[in-house]
C-alpha cells in the first residue's frame, strides 16, 4: 500500500515520516522516539489510557489514524511538564492526592482531567465525574482521581488569581 507523508509536531518537536494509512496515532507516537508514556489498554476506544492532546483537545489515539494528525500538534504525557522539569499542576495534584496506584491509566486520566479544566476551569464533582466517563482505572476507585482534579483546578485558579 502506498505510504503517505505526515508531519506531526509532538511535544514541540517536528517529526516527518512516511506512514501506512492504517497506522494508528497511538502506535505512531509510541514507536517514534521512545515516547511510551501513552498506553494501549483496551484498543477499542473504551478505556482512555491512550488519550493525548491533538491541537489542545483530547483524542483517544487508538481511534485516530496518524494521517489524520498530519499538520497537528500533539502533546503526550512526556510533554506536559515545563521544559525546566517543573511538573504541571495536574501532575502535582495526582501525586499529592494519590490519584494513582499502578499508574497505567494515569497519562490518559491526566489528559481527560486537562480537558475538563479546559472546558470548565472550576468544575463541580459531578462535572468531573461526567468528564472522566471515558477513562477507566482498575486501582484507585476514582475517589482520589476526582480529588486530584479538584486540587489541580484550585491550584490553577490560584496561579491565575
Amino acid at each position: 500500500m502506498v505510504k503517505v507523508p505526515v508531519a506531526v509536531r509532538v511535544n514541540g518537536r517536528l517529526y516527518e515520516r512516511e506512514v501506512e494509512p492504517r497506522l494508528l496515532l497511538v502506535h505512531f507516537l509510541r514507536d517514534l522516539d521512545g515516547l511510551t508514556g501513552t498506553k494501549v489498554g483496551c484498543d477499542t476506544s473504551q478505556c482512555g489510557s491512550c488519550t493525548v492532546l491533538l491541537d489542545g483537545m483530547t483524542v483517544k489515539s487508538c481511534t485516530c489514524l496518524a494521517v489524520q494528525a498530519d499538520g497537528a500538534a500533539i502533546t503526550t504525557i512526556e510533554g506536559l511538564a515545563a521544559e525546566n522539569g517543573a511538573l504541571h499542576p495536574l501532575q502535582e495534584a495526582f501525586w499529592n492526592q494519590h490519584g494513582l496506584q499502578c499508574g497505567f491509566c494515569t497519562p490518559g486520566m491526566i489528559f481527560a482531567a486537562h480537558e475538563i479544566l479546559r472546558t470548565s476551569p472550576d468544575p463541580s464533582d459531578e462535572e468531573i465525574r461526567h468528564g472522566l466517563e471515558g477513562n477507566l482505572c482498575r486501582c484507585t476507585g476514582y475517589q482520589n482521581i476526582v480529588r486530584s482534579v479538584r486540587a489541580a483546578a484550585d491550584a490553577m485558579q490560584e496561579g491565575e488569581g
Partner: protein
Amino acid sequence: MFAPQFGYHRASSVAEAGELLRSNPGAKLLAGGHSLIPVLKLRLAAPPALIDIGRLAELRGIAVDGGSLRLGALTTHAELAASPELQRHAPALAQAASVIGDPAVRNRGTIGGNVAHADPASDLPTVLVALGAAFEIAGAGGERTVPAAEFFQGMMATALGDGDLLTAVVLPARPPGQGQAYVKFAHPASRYAVIGVAAALTVSDGACTAAAVAVGGLVPVPLRAPSVEGALAGGPVAADALAAAADRVAADLGDDLIGDVFASAEYRRAVAAVWVRRALEAAAQAA
C-alpha cells in the same frame, strides 16, 4: 489491532470528495472516524480506500436562518453541545450531543458521521426524527434533500447511496412555548443508548397543543410514537396525564425490538414507558 490495508485520499473540497468517491469504487468517506475506525479495526469492513473529508471547512458550523437551523455535516458533538444557538433553538439536540460517549469521543465524532452510520444505539437520529429534520445530500446527480422519516431506512441503512455525501442537517427552530428534552438509558460501559427518547411539547395555558415524541436505541430505526402523541394532544400536562400517555408507547414499538446480553428485548419493552414518561416530564418542565 490493525485495520486491513487501504489507500488514503484527502479531499480539499466537497466536489473533489465526490470525484474521489466515483473514481474509487467501494471507497468510504472518513469524517471523525469514531465509528469507521473501530469497524475497520474489527475487520467488519475492508474498503479499498478512505476519502478523508475531515478538513473541509465548508462542512463545518451552525447557522441560524430565520426559523431554521443548518448544521454542517462535520460539526462535532462537542460543538453541538456547547452551541448557545442550539441550546436555545433545539435544546434536545444539544442535550443528546452532550451525553454521547465521553469528551474525547465528542471532540472527534461528527453529526454527519453519526447519522450516516445509523447505529440504532446512536442518540442523534432519535432527536432528528422527533424534530422533523431533513438531510442535504450531494450526489452524482446533483443535490437533494431527504426528510428524516425517509433517511433512516434500517439498522445501519440510510438513504445515502454510493457516491453520496451528506453536507448538512436542517431542522426547524423551536417555536415559542415548546419545551424539548432528550433522556437516555446509557449502557454503563460504552455509553451508547440502550433506550433514548426525544420529546417536544408545545404548551399553552397548561394544555398540550402539539407533541412530537420519538424513541430509539431499542428499535432498528428511531420511531415516532403516534399513540403517545395522540394521547397528549389537547390534554393537560399534569404528571398523571403524562404517565398515562407514556404508557401508550407499547402500541408504537412494533415486534422488532433489539435485545442483547446487557438488556433483553423483553426488558427494553417493559421499561420503555418509564423513559418516555421521563422525557415528557422534562419537556413539559422546559415548556
